[in-house]
């Protein structure tokens, strides 16, 4: 019946890049030989609809079976039977141009599966796509209907079984207005209010106090990274804030009206809107429950993207989620994707119901229910046999499930999250770097993991507590009506053996999908570091740019100044000078954190009146006596490695050029601060060349790269602090070296490579940055200590001596 009925039909599919859409396209191409598929795809920012179709649909592993069946003919078959049109269900007439409308007019059937499926979509976005989308498709079809000799096309809209809301008992396959306990809702008013909430939130986010908050928070997160980056960050924070508000608004409105989330709420209103505005278009509504991995088609376990149950299951297997709320005897209504696909195809083949809009539910709950306790037992027993492994290669034992109430789990998680974020806040204010700073970053990761878990509980909790039974009478009727030829289209959920499905199909598939560690051993993270190092040290890189302070050398401009300033002082003056600077340290640090450029300019005034010649003479000694002892040998070796590989190497530093004279031969080029001197070689304290700081560093790299025809995407940058963010962002391979807390957090979030470069453990250490005495006297620096030790030894030995003598 199916193949005959759909032969020579043109079928429009929206949402083809989604989980259900991809499976639908594939199944039609593979199992219904003579139909033609038209996919409506929204062009991306950089990709055309055609490119997206190729990359996101055709090349997907969903098509592996078909590709294997067709062999060389695959491309030709796709070419012949698949047409891509560029459009957007968020726009009127689907954003189609004339050619697109012509193409639309040729379609006999439209299957609308485009939706914002995420359960925590911002309210207005869910409204635009889920609520208004179906009626937009219907209107577009109505618009082209007059030009169709065979009459208007049949529209099949994919909805969700959960539009029936949270009531207990039977949920029949009827349109929303006829459903039990249906609320009298005006969908147009809901659209208007959602749009207004958005504009209110936007306005609120631009209030003076809010904007000050965002600015403060941006500074807290990325520090002195420069004005443009701070501005970008603040704007990001603002739009995130608005989005969060919209998500909350969606959830609140939905739950108030009895739906578990904004998805079900907008889908339900979408059905009403569709029925109200479909005009001459015959419509069928298909409502699947929770769609999960395939039972058989295109292959058992096939899944696309991370859906609802997977993150929860993986969090549980990782030991992160100890409990998930739910009623043990509640039904988890799960349906394999291939059954939904088969239903859609069968509905399409059957054609519209002459009696008006029809609803077909495809759900397992009433026919072959999977109880929550059964699911939990299946998951737990499987992971006990196939545990995941932690980063130390130890198997993770999944916890026993106690079926707690939603409130308890939620408050537990909320407590953990708030403790973690308080800890994180404390740690992030400490001046840590390197390994300690990565602890802060780890805290952040942990916190966000828990926050996510909390999110799951809030969002999905309702789905494990469902006590509605979704009736599938029409589905079974439809299944009855199929011929023997159609036996490969399985609609009846009764065929699912849950133990087999969970143990042998679903879990093995999602574990692979989640790329979690399923075998012991410590390799995974090591591999990642190795890969990153290899990529950084690939001969095809172009440029390696280095920050100096705390990236290559554990020192700063203040130390160097103190060393130079005390070089020609005697005895007590030397100590006094450095103690004076140390007493200034807190205020200097504060100034530095605010704006590095201003700090450097102010600090370098101290050099006013110094003799450049003398400083230059001392600089080499500063280098060996002080800077080199604080250098990171791995860093110096890295610079040399880059040069050896033929990369250009560039040092960018706010230090004064004469102070880093000894380092210059290490690099191809050096960009440093430069101070003017008068005709007698006396420094003026004013800078001739502003030290490149913050975003200016990115510009320096860009200029340098374009001058030497280097590609920044192929370049590496090394830095230690969030104030170098612009420089790190400018290149394709950013490396955080001994990062301070802010950068450590950023690096972790963005997956940047992190290096820990220690000082050489055998290097001489000095308490104060003081130059060697101008006239090394009779005694070496440790003569005093030697004398003290000698004295201590003498005293100790004579007391031992005395006690021995007494014993005699």
């Amino acid at each position, binding site marked *: 019946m199916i193949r005959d009925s759909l032969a020579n039909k043109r079928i429009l599919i929206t949402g083809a890049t989604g989980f259900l859409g991809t499976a639908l396209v594939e199944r039609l191409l593979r199992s219904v030989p003579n139909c033609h598929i038209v996919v409506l795809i929204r062009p991306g920012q950089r990709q055309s609809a055609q490119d997206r179709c190729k990359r996101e649909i055709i090349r997907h592993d969903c098509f592996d079976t078909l590709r294997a069946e067709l062999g060389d003919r695959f491309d030709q078959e796709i070419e012949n039977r698949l047409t891509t049109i560029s459009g957007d269900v968020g726009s009127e007439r689907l954003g189609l141009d004339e050619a697109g409308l012509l193409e639309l007019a040729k379609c006999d059937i439209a299957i609308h599966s485009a939706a914002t499926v995420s359960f925590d979509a911002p309210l207005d976005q869910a409204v635009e796509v889920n609520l208004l989308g179906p009626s937009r498709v219907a209107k577009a079809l109505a618009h082209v209907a007059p030009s169709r000799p065979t009459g208007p096309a049949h529209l099949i809209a994919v909805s969700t079984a959960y539009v029936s809301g949270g009531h207990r008992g039977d949920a029949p396959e009827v349109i929303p207005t006829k459903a039990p306990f249906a609320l009298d809702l005006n969908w147009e008013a809901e659209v208007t209010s959602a749009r207004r909430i958005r504009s209110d939130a936007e306005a609120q986010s631009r209030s003076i106090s809010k904007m000050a908050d965002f600015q403060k928070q941006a500074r807290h997160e990325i520090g002195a990274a420069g004005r443009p980056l701070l501005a970008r960050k603040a704007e990001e924070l603002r739009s995130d804030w608005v989005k969060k508000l919209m998500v909350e608004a969606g959830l609140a409105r939905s739950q108030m009206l009895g739906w578990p989330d904004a998805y079900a709420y907008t889908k339900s209103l979408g059905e009403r809107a569709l029925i109200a505005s479909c005009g001459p278009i015959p419509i069928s509504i298909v409502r699947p429950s929770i769609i999960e991995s395939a039972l058989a088609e295109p292959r058992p376990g096939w899944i696309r993207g991370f859906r609802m149950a997977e993150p929860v299951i993986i969090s549980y297997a990782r030991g992160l989620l100890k409990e998930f709320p739910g009623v043990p005897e509640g039904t988890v209504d799960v349906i394999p994707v291939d059954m939904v696909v088969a239903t859609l195809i069968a509905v399409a083949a059957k054609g519209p119901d002459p009696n008006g809009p029809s609803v077909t539910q495809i759900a397992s709950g009433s026919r072959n229910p999977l109880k929550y306790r059964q699911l939990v037992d299946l998951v737990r027993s499987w992971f006990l046999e196939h545990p995941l492994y932690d980063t130390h290669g130890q198997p993770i034992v999944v916890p026993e499930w106690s079926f707690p109430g939603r409130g308890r789990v939620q408050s537990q998680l909320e407590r953990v999250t708030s403790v973690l974020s308080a800890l994180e806040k404390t740690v992030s204010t400490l001046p840590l770097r390197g390994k300690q700073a990565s602890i802060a970053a780890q805290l952040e990761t942990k916190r966000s993991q828990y926050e996510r878990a909390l999110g799951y509980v809030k969002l999905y909790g309702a789905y494990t507590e469902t006590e509605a039974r979704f009736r599938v009478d029409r589905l079974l009727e439809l299944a009855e009506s199929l011929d023997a030829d159609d036996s490969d289209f399985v609609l009846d959920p009764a065929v699912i053996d849950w133990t087999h499905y969970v143990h042998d199909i679903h879990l093995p598939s999602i574990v692979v999908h989640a790329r979690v560690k399923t075998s012991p051993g410590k390799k995974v993270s090591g591999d990642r570091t190795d890969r990153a190092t290899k990529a950084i040290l690939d001969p095809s890189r172009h440029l390696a740019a280095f920050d100096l302070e705390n990236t290559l050398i554990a020192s700063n401009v203040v130390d160097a100044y103190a060393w130079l300033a005390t070089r020609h002082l005697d005895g007590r003056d030397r100590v006094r000078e450095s103690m004076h600077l140390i007493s200034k340290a807190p205020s200097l640090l504060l100034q530095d954190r605010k704006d590095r450029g201003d700090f450097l300019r102010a600090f370098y005034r101290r050099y006013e009146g110094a003799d450049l010649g003398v400083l230059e003479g001392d600089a080499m000694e500063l*280098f060996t006596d002080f800077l*080199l002892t604080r250098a990171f*040998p791995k860093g110096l070796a890295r610079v*040399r490695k880059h040069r050896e590989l033929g990369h250009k190497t560039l040092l960018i530093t706010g230090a004064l050029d004469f102070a880093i004279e000894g380092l210059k031969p290490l690099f191809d080029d050096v960009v440093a601060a430069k101070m003017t001197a008068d005709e007698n070689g006396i420094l003026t304290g004013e800078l001739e060349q502003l030290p490149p700081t913050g975003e200016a560093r990115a510009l320096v790299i860009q200029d340098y790269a374009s001058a030497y025809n280097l590609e920044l995407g192929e370049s590496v940058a090394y830095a230690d602090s969030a104030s170098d963010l612009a420089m790190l962002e400018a290149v394709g391979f950013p490396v955080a070296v001994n990062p301070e807390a802010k950068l450590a957090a950023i690096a972790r979030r963005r997956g940047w490579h992190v290096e820990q470069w220690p000082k*050489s*453990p055998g290097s001489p250490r000095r308490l104060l940055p003081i130059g060697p005495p101008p006239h090394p006297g*009779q005694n070496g620096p*440790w003569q005093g200590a030697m004398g003290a030790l000698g004295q201590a*030894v003498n005293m100790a030995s004579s007391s031992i001596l005395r006690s*021995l003598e007494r014993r005699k």
Partner: protein
Amino acid sequence: MSSRPGFVMEVDRSTPPTLFWHGEGWKLEKLPSGSRIIYPKEPMEALRDPDRAIQDALDNPLGESEPLDALLKPGMKLTIAFDDISLPLPPMQKPDIRQRVIEAVLTRAANAGVDDVVLIAALALHRRMTEAELRHALGNRVYDSFAPHGLLKQHDAEDPDGLTYLGTTDKGEEVEISKRACESDLIVYVNINLVAMDGGHKSVATGLASYKSLRHHHNVATMRASKSFMDQHHSELHSANWRMGRYIKQQGIKIFQIETTLNTNTFPSQFRFLQKREWEWDIRDRATFIASSKVMSKTPPRINRSVFHSILSPHAMSSVQAGEVEAVHERTTEHVYAQQLVPVSGQSDILTLGLPYISPYNVNSVLNPILVACLGLGYFFNLYRNKPLVRKGGVLIMSHPTTWEFNPVHHPSYIDFFDQVLSETTDPEVIQSKYEESFAKDPWYIHLYRTGNAYHGVHPFYMWYWCAHALEHLGKVIIVGGDPKAVSRLGFSPATTLMDALEMAKDVVGSNPSLTHFHVPPLAIADVS
């Protein structure tokens, strides 16, 4: 008072535990009965009046040489080269011998109206000395008269304008040395002869040479053909230097060699137990041992290191001779042997050594793992004449903490050598052929050598070549109490205790091995029959 000679003692049940140096510290170890301990000779008597002896030596030169005064003429170019920071060990109490000798030479030069005088520290590829180190070696008077005028130089083996290529020896060895030295009418070389390898033609031919010249004898083949390099008659290192020295002489370059020897009074009085035989420790020695061990166990290693490196040795001049290089060196060697030679009969299966905190290349710095290897396998192993103390295929057990520490100022190329080269191979020949050139010609190392206080890029290779003879000879090397990771990187076996090490050694030398402990420093040379 004449000093008692060195001797070999057999351990029996009444023998007290033996002192083992262990880096910046020491341990007492009980050796198995039947083991032998080689004790050095006690310090010989020093010259009563070293300044007088110096004047005598300058007036009464050895070999075919006129007295110094006769060689000094107004208007001449005079270069005084002197041994660098690597000698003596530990650095000596003031005044340093170099100061005494150079002041004497300078006085005579001034009297003779010589006004073109340059002092050069004969660094070869060693690190440049710091101002404090130069002042210590030369005294403030000499330093302040020469340094401010740029007349106190440190040899720069990488200065393209500061070297003269003289030609090749009959064996094809290229000779390239300091240009100033070549252009001088007279070179006065001021040496301190701590071990038998020092001095002679090596002073100029090595101390003032370039890498191009040095590589002809600082290589694996030469070191393997020097058995040992402390024994000039069986040392290819010695022969090569002599060929070069004679070639330099043939080119008309005039050298007035002044060599000095030291007695082995190595440690100051508060540590006198370090150079006494354990059964002769009096109650004060034992108390000092316990007290110092206690103090050191409480203070951080970093502080201990600084304290040890500030030890100035009381060793005193035991002879001084001047004149023609070879004649002078012959006499010098006699004096060194007189102080250091200890007759030992026969080899043993196992040799044990306690390694101290210092070697020629880490004055005021940490003894990094490569230098640990060089001190044990290069220096102490080679302190023999005739035959090594340990038989072919035997085991060397050394005691040293061998921490993974490097001084980034003095030893930058060591860090990379340890990281990049020894991680690939420990075979000296492979290392020489595969890696030497890239380190030797590395511009960054050259920059640090020339402008900072860094050993030349190739220097860690030489340290490894220094070990080549021992590596070829030995069946196994064990380091007791070392950082296992660092020890393994060196290709050696780490052991926690001496007893563990002895058990491990039995796998190589059988279950009933003979054992010799070489009780140095103070230094000695084993004359093994």
